[in-house]
């Protein structure tokens, strides 16, 4: 049974996994790129080894080097986190070949679910409904896809076969758009996954994105930990998740039915360890299998908060060959949890990424608040990796309490040095549609605006005016003081600039 784990990732998820290992008394090994020497995961691990330059291809995607680190350090297992190598069957296999435990599913299950088209075929064969699309057609050329598109009907989605996280995904509303968007989607898929294959899928309108967390051990137990509502997305990137889903709500029968289907989907590929079954749910509560993520999800904490299950620790126990510590009947959803993804991007400037050194940070704390963060004051947010710098998760006895708690936490959360999307989340918390639980996957892009003013909310315009004037006044005064000083002793100026030269 392994006693040392290599965490083959970075950022908040690497820190999350390191903490779980440490709390289980397991030794930890971090790997890092040149951009991450000072990163938290390097600081918190027992050991840390450099992989290479900043770009992922030369560092966090170098499975060979990571396995070498594991062997060199005497580790017995590798946890891939999410992204990077997490859903690469060849990497999982290489770990096993090197005699290392892979903390995740078997390579065969990753392969079966990793090719989205094969996955849809597999679960479809097991009697599970899927969204109509080109599943099971294998790799298709552009001309085939253009030919098949009208049969599926518009609007439809182009999706990367190897995809995830909205990368390589495009929405198509007419046949004319197809060629250009196919090109863009393949380009992004190739850049992100090294695989430009794409497939088509019907776009279910007014749909909710609801997913079920699965846990499975090597002794044949498969359970689900209830659902997560992930409909709040922008450019197919999730921004906010909650558990339970306000759409499923009190419909315990729907929850159990979807949960059973999720378990069956996992069983169809003899799934082991933690995984997630994603469904699209239409307004009539019809649900369709979308895909399975054969790894830990970014949004796993909301499930942890309402079930009390530490998913990462459970992953490690399963990988050690233990039985699950819970049976399905132990799982109860207690209260309500919401997660806001805090991204280094500017919501007032088209959500463009923001990079730079974090000069200051004040995190919200107190009862019912959890922050999973990978950054700290002094750390440089680089353009090499994704924009997620922290996750703010709150728990409340009810959804209303959770929303109020999230509001106060967002207001408390201060980050200086980079812009973040915290104001976006604040705006969302104030929106009546969000409060009412009335939103679908298109809500953020189509019905939400950073500029719109909610009814009944008066903007403190006068306070903004006073604040800006006080800041401007201070700047003017400071400038004036420098001039005054200069007047007293005019010879200073040349020496000041000389001094500045010395400082360089």
């Amino acid at each position, binding site marked *: 049974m392994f006693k040392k784990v290599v965490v083959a990732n970075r950022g908040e998820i690497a820190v999350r996994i390191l903490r779980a290992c440490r709390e289980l008394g397991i030794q930890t090994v971090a790997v890092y790129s040149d951009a991450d020497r000072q990163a938290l995961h390097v600081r918190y691990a027992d050991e840390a080894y450099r992989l290479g330059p900043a770009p992922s291809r030369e560092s966090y995607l170098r499975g060979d080097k990571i396995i070498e680190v594991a062997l060199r350090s005497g580790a017995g297992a590798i946890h891939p986190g999410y992204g990077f190598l997490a859903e690469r069957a060849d990497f999982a296999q290489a770990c096993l070949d090197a005699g290392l435990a892979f903390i995740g599913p078997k390579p065969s299950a990753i392969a079966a679910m990793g090719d989205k088209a094969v996955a849809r075929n597999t679960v479809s064969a097991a009697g599970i409904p899927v969204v109509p699309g080109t599943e099971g057609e294998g790799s298709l050329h552009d001309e085939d896809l253009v030919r098949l598109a009208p049969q599926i009907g518009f609007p439809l989605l182009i999706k990367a076969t190897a995809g995830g996280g909205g990368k390589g995904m495009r929405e198509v509303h007419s046949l004319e758009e197809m060629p250009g968007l196919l090109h863009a989607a393949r380009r992004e898929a190739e850049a992100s996954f090294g695989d430009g294959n794409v497939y088509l899928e019907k776009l279910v309108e007014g749909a909710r994105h609801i997913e079920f967390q699965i846990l499975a051990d090597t002794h044949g137990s498969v359970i689900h930990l209830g659902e997560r509502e992930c409909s709040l997305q922008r450019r197919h990137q999730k921004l906010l998740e909650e558990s339970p889903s306000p759409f499923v709500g009190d419909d315990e029968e729907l929850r159990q039915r979807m949960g059973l289907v999720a378990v069956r989907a996992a069983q169809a590929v003899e799934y082991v360890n933690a995984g997630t079954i994603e469904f699209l749910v239409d307004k009539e509560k019809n649900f369709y299998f979308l895909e399975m993520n054969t790894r830990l999800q970014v949004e796993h904490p909301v499930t942890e908060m309402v079930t009390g299950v530490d998913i990462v620790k459970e992953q490690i126990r399963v990988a050690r060959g233990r039985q699950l510590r819970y049976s399905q009947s132990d799982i109860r959803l207690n209260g309500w949890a919401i997660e806001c993804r805090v991204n280094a991007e500017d919501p007032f400037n088209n959500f463009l990424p923001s990079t730079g050194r974090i000069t200051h940070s004040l995190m919200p704390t107190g009862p019912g608040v959890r922050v999973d963060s990978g950054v700290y004051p002094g750390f440089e947010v680089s353009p090499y990796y*994704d924009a997620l710098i922290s996750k703010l998760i709150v728990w409340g006895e009810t959804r209303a309490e959770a929303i109020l708690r999230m509001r106060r936490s967002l*207001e408390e959360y201060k980050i200086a040095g980079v812009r973040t999307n915290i104001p976006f989340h604040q705006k969302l918390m104030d929106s009546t549609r969000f409060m009412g639980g009335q939103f679908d996957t298109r809500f953020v892009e189509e019905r939400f605006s950073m500029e719109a003013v909610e009814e009944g909310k008066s903007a*403190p315009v006068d306070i903004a005016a006073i604040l800006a004037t006080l800041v401007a006044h201070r700047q003017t005064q400071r400038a004036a003081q420098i001039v005054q000083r200069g007047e007293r002793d005019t010879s200073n100026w040349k020496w000041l600039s000389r001094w500045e030269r010395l400082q360089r």
Partner: protein
Amino acid sequence: MKYITMVGDQEFQIEIVDERHVSLNGTLYEVDFDSVSGEPVVSLLVDGKSYEAYVYEDEQGLQVLLHGRMFPVLVEDEREKRLRAAAGSRIAERGDFHLRSPMPGLVIALPVGEGQEVQKGEVLVVLESMKMQNELRAPRAGIISRLRVKPGDSVDQHQTLLTVS
């Protein structure tokens, strides 16, 4: 010191009376203003009400982020206001527009060529940063007078990518 402060298109007459007093459109307020948590976070007490905000500088003036809302603000004294009124706002419409990179990244595509005419809103550059592809669009119509980068280039923040004339 007296200022004319524009928040969006709302105008305020503000006088900084002393360290502790500000008058806003003729009404006197007691204020206590302090920088906290390092720039750009500031704390303001106005007649006992407590506010916390970020105040950023940009080319146009100041941006105040307060309660999750961003207010663009222009603060001027009388002299500055008169100068600006005299100069008019002709500059922005004419002359060259230099598209600068809003972040460090990798140039993925340049769908335009030198000498090409572009419309407002047209995609000029596709830039990859933080694993996302971002489309940079033309803020106004014009002609691409100079391309300074090519696909595959790594660019720094604020680097000029191309010029629209």
